[in-house]
């Protein structure tokens, strides 16, 4: 028995060691990237005016957080993205459900969905701004538009892939179409919908940042464009760093929600 125990501890130790190796490599890459950037900027290997440097970015971020200006921009963009993400996902699921509910409706809508899906949604930006005015509404709409069509198509095809025998069982009890949806089709598709959440996080960021590029007086997208126009690339880089951190955080949170949902709906 003792032998089994030792084998197991050896296995666990090995796992731990592997994790440590991976983590140290990850840190090594990060640190060498930052230091290489810093050194090349200091030594004028790259133009510090264009590519800035980690210390400048840190200082600039520090300053902007102290006077609170970064926080306003950050919260505006975050608010727009989260809203665009939620509306896009829920909207996509609702449209997919209505397509599922009527075969004829889905066949009528098919060519339109194909065109809308193939179309780069950000190209609609100017029209949206003209229609909805330069403000939150336009930008949230952009965040929503980028994710809604692909959500619709993915969820709809997942609805159709549900084993028809589940519906057969329900129909043998005299279930209505709505009961079939509620009892079989929707719960069976839930994993697809949840994994769609992760895709949509990224998509909504695209929509919102592009929206802010086009029109806005606030937000991280605005900061990037403003920094570009006044040739303050430290500001551009700082905004990019913040976007990267926020997007990664949002992704992680959605991943948590996903795990929780899967555990609780089984």
């Amino acid at each position, binding site marked *: 028995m003792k032998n089994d125990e030792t084998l197991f501890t050896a296995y666990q130790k090995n796992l731990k060691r592997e994790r440590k190796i991976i983590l140290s490599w990850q840190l090594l890459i990060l640190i060498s990237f930052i230091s290489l950037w810093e050194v090349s900027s200091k030594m004028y290997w790259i133009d510090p005016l264009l590519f800035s440097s980690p210390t400048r970015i840190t200082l600039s971020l520090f300053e902007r957080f102290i006077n609170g200006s970064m926080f306003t921009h950050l919260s505006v963009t975050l608010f727009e993205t989260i809203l665009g993400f939620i509306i896009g996902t829920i909207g996509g699921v609702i449209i997919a459900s209505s397509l599922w509910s009527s075969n004829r409706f889905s066949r009528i809508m098919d060519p339109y969905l194909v065109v809308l899906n193939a179309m780069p949604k950000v190209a609609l930006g100017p029209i949206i701004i003209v229609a909805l005015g330069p403000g939150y509404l336009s930008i949230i709409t952009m965040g929503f538009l980028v994710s809604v069509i692909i959500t619709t198509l993915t969820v709809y095809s997942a609805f159709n892939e549900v084993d028809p025998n589940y519906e*057969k*069982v*329900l*129909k043998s009890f*005299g279930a209505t179409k709505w009961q079939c949806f509620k*009892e079989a089709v929707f719960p069976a598709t839930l994993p697809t919908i949840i994994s769609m959440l992760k895709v949509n996080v990224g998509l909504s960021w695209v929509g919102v940042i592009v929206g802010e590029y086009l029109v806005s007086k606030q937000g991280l997208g605005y900061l990037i464009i403003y920094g570009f126009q006044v040739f303050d690339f430290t500001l551009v880089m700082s905004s990019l760093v913040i976007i990267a951190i926020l997007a990664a955080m949002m992704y992680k949170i959605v991943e948590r929600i996903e795990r929780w949902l899967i555990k609780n709906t*089984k």
Partner: protein
Amino acid sequence: MSFLTLDRVSHHYFYKNGYTKALENISFTLKEGEFISLLGPSGCGKSTILSIISGLFKQTEGHVTLENKPITESKLAIGYMLQQDYLFPWKTILSNALLGPKITNNNEDSMRQTALQLLEEVGLSGVADKYPTELSGGMRQRVALVRTLINDPKILLLDEPFSALDYQTKLKLEDLVGKLLKTYHKSAILVTHDIGEAIAMSDRILVMGSNPGTIAKSFEVPIELRNQLPLEVRKHPKYQILFDKIWAELEEKEKQKGRSS
């Protein structure tokens, strides 16, 4: 007294580029409490007959009546059991068993006791809160049986419900179904391609021919075999005699098909 009647039922499947006639002139009656088997090669339209009786789709010609009323008017008359259990993996065993009452708004809560009782009767006590993935194939099919029986259907439609199980489980489940149907005095139609299973379980066997599906011949199962449990029937001397007769009939069909094509 005839209970369920199929009167010259035909069915076509239509496709973009043509159609196939799946059933032609199917007529038979099922008496109350009777157990009929539909026996035939795959693709002879056996399952189509069940789908029509259950109202999943409508036949293109002919009539199906239950107690002299069109089958579509009589609600709740049919319990359908499929080849696989199709338990909903996200529901517990108990909620799976209570699916019927939930759909028909029969107040799920009042049926809870009945469900637990039925589960116990099929030898599944203490699994009510488990999920289908935690159960073996035979257990899952027994849950499916409970799910079918709980709405107290007048007729059970069994679409090869034992074919996906291993042999021992299959024999045990045949016994269980046979016993339950006798106790509750239910009528049933079993679709199968297993001659032994058909003899062991039914009172009457309808052998089907294919392309299009027709009823070729009807065999009465000897009275001595009818009241025995399926496992006992298989040991009875008359079992083999009937088996050979049906075998010969099916062989004959095969030969005819070979000649005509």
